[in-house]
Structure formats: C-alpha cells, structure tokens
C-alpha cells in the first residue's frame, strides 16, 4: 500500500440526549488525557483535523472531535420534522455532557471554539468539577452582533455562499490560502439554517454576562485564547470576560482570527502547545500527590 493513512479514526456513537437517541459522529486519535474538541457554529469536527493528526499531542492526549447533531456526519434525530433548528444553552450543555458520558470519559478536558468557547464558559459555571481543564478559543461572555442572521437562511440567497462569505472576514490575512478555503468549505456545506440556528445560542440564549463571575478556576483551570483578527469575539471581549474571572489564563494570538485550529494550524500550535503542556504538568503533579 502506497497511500499515507492518517492516525485519525472516525466512528459513530449512539447518545441519549434528554431522552432522545442521537447518532453522533466523532473522530479521535492519541491516548491519554481525554481532550474533547468543539467546532464553531455552522461547521463540523473537521476543523480539528490538524490537531488530531499531531503526533506529539497524541502521545499524551486522547483527542476527540465530534460533530454536533445537524452538523457534519451527525444527522438530525429521527424525530425531526423539519421545524427550525435552534441551539440553546441547555441543549448544547446536555449534548456535550451526554457525549462525554457515552464515551465514559474520565474528567475530560474540553476545548471549544466560538460557540464552543462560549459553552465552555457555561461548563465552567455549572459543571466545573466534571472537567480536568477547560479551554475557550474565541470565547467571551457576550459580543456585539455585526450582521443580521436572517440573511443566513432565506430562499433568495445561497446559504452556503453567504455563510462562508460572512465568516471569511474573520480569518486573519496571514492565514494560508488552502487553509482559508478549507475552513470556508465547511460553511458552504452546512445544512440550511444550521449556522443560523447555532447563532440563536450565541446571540440570544447564551448571554453569560453576570454569570461568569461564578467560575472557580481552582475547581477547574480555564484557559482563554483569542485571535487578534477576530472582530466577532474580539480580544477586548475575551479580556473583559477574563477580568471577571479570578485565575483565568488569557492569551491573544497574533496572526490568527476566529478559526485558529483550521485557518492556520501551524500558527495555532505555537499557542496551544504550552496550554496542553500546562494541563499535562498539572496532571503529573496530581498523580504524584495521589489526588487522582
């Protein structure tokens, strides 16, 4: 055989989310500390493929990226009758916890980007003890809207084209063309109304202002990393959020935008590697002191 086979393996797991079964697609690689990766609104787990293919990280982390229902290869549930999809804070939180439970993950690290970054904050508020560490990319308790989401799903506008064109500006100009195109391709492939439905959580239901103060980083460490070119979740949004949380680590990433892991994987690695090192070091200390 001449073809190069990547170490990433994809499978389906049937997950009970609030009493209904969902067939969830996930990809994984590596062994060690479970690290669950959450994709951005309107995209899917392919955004994490470079991280999952990283041989160094795979030595210490079991990296898992799943497609949210309605996204990628995770279909809507069998009961779906075509009514408008809307992601809520409660449903998003249930989905992540149910997925982790279904895979029997022991206190995983969860790293999410954009809406994934926002929900990571909610996990830190309400379920911190279930996680080893939480990492929010492009995360804030709230950010000012910059377009009307009704443009994302209407019959006289091509949904894939407009979704991709809107988010294209969130990619840093320094990001390689091929990575930019691949990042946007997922947006062009999304189901009708799915990006818009995700943004219901982001814009309407998931406002965490006034709640992030409850986060206790002594229970679960919190790392926030935001790209300097992200004008949706700006560095200022992330800094403002972190200022209300004692002990949160903040990093502003140069030459990166809203999709660090997929728009410029090499540049992102420079920033995420030290964070994963810290997670690993904390684990080693905990093992030595018998706290596990």
């Amino acid at each position, binding site marked *: 055989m001449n073809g190069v086979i990547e170490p990433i393996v994809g499978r389906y797991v049937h997950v009970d989310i609030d009493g209904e079964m969902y067939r969830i697609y996930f990809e994984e690689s590596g062994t060690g500390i479970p690290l669950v990766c959450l994709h951005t609104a309107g995209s899917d787990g392919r955004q994490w493929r470079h991280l999952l293919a990283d041989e160094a990280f795979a030595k210490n982390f079991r990296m898992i990226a799943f497609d949210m229902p309605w996204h990628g290869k995770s279909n809507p549930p069998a009961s779906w009758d075509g009514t408008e999809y809307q992601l809520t804070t409660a449903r998003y939180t249930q989905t992540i916890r149910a997925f982790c439970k279904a895979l029997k993950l022991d206190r995983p690290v969860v790293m999410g980007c954009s809406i994934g970054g926002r929900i990571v904050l909610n996990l830190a508020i309400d379920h911190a003890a279930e996680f080893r560490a939480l990492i929010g990319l492009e995360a804030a308790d709230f950010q*000012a809207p*910059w*377009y009307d989401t009704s*443009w994302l799903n209407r019959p*006289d*506008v*091509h949904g894939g*084209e*407009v979704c*991709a*064109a*809107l988010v*294209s*500006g*969130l990619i*840093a*100009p*320094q990001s390689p063309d091929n990575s930019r195109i691949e990042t946007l391709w997922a947006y062009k492939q999304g189901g009708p109304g799915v990006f818009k439905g995700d943004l219901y959580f982001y814009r309407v239901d998931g406002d965490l202002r006034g709640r992030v103060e409850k986060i206790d980083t002594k229970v679960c460490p919190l790392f926030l990393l935001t790209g*300097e*070119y992200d*004008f949706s979740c700006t560095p200022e949004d992330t800094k403002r959020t972190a200022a209300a949380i004692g002990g949160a680590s903040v990093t502003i990433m140069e030459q990166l935008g809203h999709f660090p892991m997929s728009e410029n994987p090499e540049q992102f690695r420079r920033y995420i590697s030290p964070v994963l090192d810290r997670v690993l070091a904390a684990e080693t200390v905990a093992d030595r002191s018998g706290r596990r």
Partner: protein
Amino acid sequence: MISASNATDAAVIEAFAGIAALLDQTPALIQRGRFLDCDCLLGPASHAFHASIRQGRIVDLTPSPALMRSWQFSYRASVAAWVEYWQPAPRPGFHDLLALTKRGEAVLEGDLHPFMTHLQYFKDVLALPRRHFATAVS
C-alpha cells in the same frame, strides 16, 4: 472615523477609479459575478463612485454626485479605512468590509440583497487595489 491627508485622499480616489480595469484583468472574479446586475454607490465617503455592474463587470464608474442617479445599495468608508484595507496585511479590524462597518469606519445602506448574494465578490472586488496601493503611496 480616522482622517487622512489630501494627498492620501487623491491616492484613494485614483485607486478606486482603477478598480474596473483591475476587475477586467481578473476573469475568475467576473465569473463569480456573472449573474450580478446592479447599480451601487461605492468608495470613499466623501468621494464615492456610482458603479454599474453588468454580468459581473463594472461597465461604468462615475464619480458622485451624478444628477438624479439611483443606486440600490451603498458601501462607503473613510479614506483612511480604504488605505488600511488595501495594505498587503491589513491591521486587525481593518481587514474586512464588515469589520469596518462594525468599528464605524464604513456605512452600508440601501437594499442589501445584491450585496449579500455576492458578498465575497464585493469583498474581493473592493480589495483589488491591495496588490498595488501600498507601493503606489509609499
């Protein structure tokens, strides 16, 4: 909005006037706009241009004001914002048309349908001077 000098004003206006020719040299972009016919008002807020687009080509670009000329939508930004937008690697917040509207450096008005159906087209057409502008004003 940030301000610019008269010389910069002139350079931006000249660069804008050259967009139609730059588009003619970019067949892939014309192909992407092949279903687009619209009249719009684009450019520096103080010296905008009436652009007539037919099948993805800018067939007429007339400086405003033009007597009783209609437009479907307008996208107008400060001169300084265009200068920033046309840098080879624009600064954060100046790198995208909607980043400029969010920070108040540009205003988008009118019937936005043609703009939204061809959003990436307009982003790329209005970025065409990026290839030459920085060297032209340096």
